[in-house]
């Protein structure tokens, strides 16, 4: 094994910690959509986990019937069945890559993780589009040209409700893992470049 193919101990430790943290993500809320309106000064919250929806789902469903949005049910999402396993697999991969410590594997993990992040966000956006646009034509409230797709990230006003979409604890862990992984890739690339020069 070439010496410069093995990553430094700090990075290996980081990857293992990230892997463990990803297991925690399975049980934590990943995304949060907050809804505010004059009548809801206390706010409403929709929490998305890897395996379920939580927060005031029933109340939000009750309100959505005015605009003809389909009710949210965890059973309708295949994602909730597979997502915990995918996240678990990534957790294992982080730990394995940290244990083996090969630079090439780190790079591969980075690409795979980035790809997963992109696919997940695209999937999320598609669901939001679907719920926001495919409305019951018999809905009591019909505003011409109005769609109710919540923002992917950030704030958007939807009639009397302000919708604020941001990562929850699990989502932030995910982001931090990604950033740390990117850092490892970058730092190892610098180390390798320097060792080639010398």
């Amino acid at each position, binding site marked *: 094994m070439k010496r410069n193919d093995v990553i430094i101990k700090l990075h290996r430790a980081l990857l293992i910690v990230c892997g463990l943290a990803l297991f925690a993500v399975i049980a934590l809320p990943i995304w949060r959509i907050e809804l505010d309106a004059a009548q809801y000064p206390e706010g409403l919250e929709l929490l998305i986990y890897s395996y379920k929806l939580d927060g005031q789902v029933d109340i939000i469903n009750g309100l959505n*019937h005015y605009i003809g949005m389909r009710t949210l049910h965890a059973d309708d999402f295949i994602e909730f069945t597979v997502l915990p396993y995918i996240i678990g697999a990534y957790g294992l991969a982080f730990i394995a890559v940290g244990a083996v410590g090969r630079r090439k594997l780190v790079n591969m993990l980075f690409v795979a993780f980035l790809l997963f992040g992109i696919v997940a966000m695209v999937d999320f956006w598609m669901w939001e589009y679907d719920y926001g646009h495919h409305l019951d034509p018999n809905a009591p409230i019909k505003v011409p040209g109005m769609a109710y797709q919540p923002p992917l990230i950030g704030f958007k006003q939807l009639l009397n409700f302000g919708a604020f979409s941001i990562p929850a604890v699990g989502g932030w862990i995910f982001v931090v893992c990604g950033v740390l992984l990117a850092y490892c890739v970058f730092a190892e690339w610098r180390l390798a470049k320097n060792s080639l020069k010398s």
Partner: protein
Amino acid sequence: MKRRKHLLWLLAAMVVSISFSACKPRGAGSAVTGNAAARTYVPPGQYDEFYNFVSGGFSGQMSVYGLPSGRLFRVIPVFSVDPEKGWGFSEETKPMLETSHGFIPWDDLHHIEASFTDGMPDGKWMFANSNNTPRLARIDLATHRTAEIIEIPNTGGNHCSPFTTENSEYVIAATRFSVPPDGPGGDVPISSYKENFKGHISFVRVDKETGEFDIAFQLKTPGLNFDLSSAGKGKSNGWLFLSCYNSEQAHTLLEVSASQNDKDFILAINWKKAEEYFKAGRGTKQAVRYAHNKYNEETHSATSEIKTEVTVLDVADFEDLAYLIPCPKSPHGTDVNPTGEYIIGSGKLAALIPVFSFDKLQNAIANKDFEAEQYGGIPVVKYESALHGEVEKPGLGPLHTEFDDKGNAYTSFFVSSEIVKWNIEKLEVIDRQPTYYSVGHLMVAGGNSKKPYGKYLVAYNKITKDRFLPTGPELCHAAQLFDISGEKMELLLDFPTIGEPHYAQAVPADLIKDRSVKIYDINANKHPYIAKGESEARVERNGNTVHVYLTTIRSHFTPDNIEGIQLGDEVYFHVTNIEQDWDMPHGFAIKGAGNSELLVMPGETQTLKWVPDRTGIFPMYCTDFCSALHQEMSGYVRVSPKGSNVQLAFSTGVNPSAGE
């Protein structure tokens, strides 16, 4: 010449008479200091510092205000029906107003007192008494609803109530009108008062956890009118002091005949001793009938049970149970100060306020420092032996005294229409402020506790006259808020009240607001006629009885089209509000129903009985504006003649084929 002289005299007389009327003191006016508005102003969106629970007197209800704003938040129905809330109209709440006399739709709610732990309000419950058909109520402060009502046997009017002991071990109920004990022996000449009429003081035990009432025992006394009472606290915990008037034992024209004696009494009872005697089985069991009504929050229904026995101890049978202290004249309030040492009697016809000392009373009892003659078998302590001192010339018509945390007492004066602040130790008047007009009870925040919160005093006035815009001959009673944090009391605010407030309690908002229930969990709802979702909504016929399991959610009923009801049917609408969102009640009303609406909270089930009186189509609708589509929240019920072949059918959102 003569005429001019006459004119001069006339002019002189006019000048004199004008200057006389100029000497006449000015009336009430507005005696408010500059920044009173800022001190009572609670900006929009902010909370008051205190909950103020105020008795509703002849309205039979209890109202909830905020202090210092004087804003009304809620009227809690207790002893009177309230069609706004369906109280006494829904099948679930009707049993709450049952008594041994049957269903009673009204009473006179006189006083309220907080539940106490170690002499301080604990924010769990309010207790209230009814003065006409004697009862005691418990109001749950998590729901702000009446949770329990118990009838008091052997009692005329339960006025001297619902004052509680230091840890609310007992709530007291004592008769204002002595009467012969319950039962067939009560048919006696009124003129045999002295012989046959008796007073009864009930000790109603309160379960520390559930709050449930239980009449532990009653003390039988000579015929006396018990007015108010106050339990000892701190050093005097274990004692109870009751004011009594009509020591003359009159039974007619009491206005005159019960005002003859220079002194009536404060009755001091060693209730810990009474409890010992009761537990030792020294009481007599008496057959009586009284109702005990409880509201179950799981079934959302009340039950009424008639109980048939009470244990009575005659105070004359025991040497060390009760003592009378002479008190001038026809005392109303008897109030124990925060340390428990002083007992203040407010003789409503007296020109002074006597202050009795608990220590001196104990010495007098130990030394048998009694009057030569007992009163109805009860020893009478010598006035001077129990007296700490008298407040001279405090005002006219003292009624009720409360306390601050600095050793001062505040007494209301009905006749001279003022509140007087005085020092208990020194017996000196410090300040007096007029009230508009004729104050009855007053309330200092925490003023009946071991550590008064002080700061605010509210005067509950009996006469309103010109304080507000006139509303015809019937005027509201007025409350007046004073700031008592300084040496002088300062009037801050007038505000109108519901009914006639006889007494009130102020509890810091923090003790109550975070425990306030927002919704009822529908999964915990054990109502026998619940529909837990729209899939369970249905109509069932059982002979002439039809049960409609109806659900409400924004903004429709399920079912909302019902056919097959026949003339002669008794229809029960069991309305379950399947919302689980705060402040999202739905109402229910149907044309021709001979009772009120229902107001159903999220997760709750309530039932309206409806007996249609004619055939046709009857609209029903939601009465509480629930959403933008509230006007659409309605439905129809079809009533056909008896024996009609229209089949029972129900639906929402489809057009059923008529079953004809």
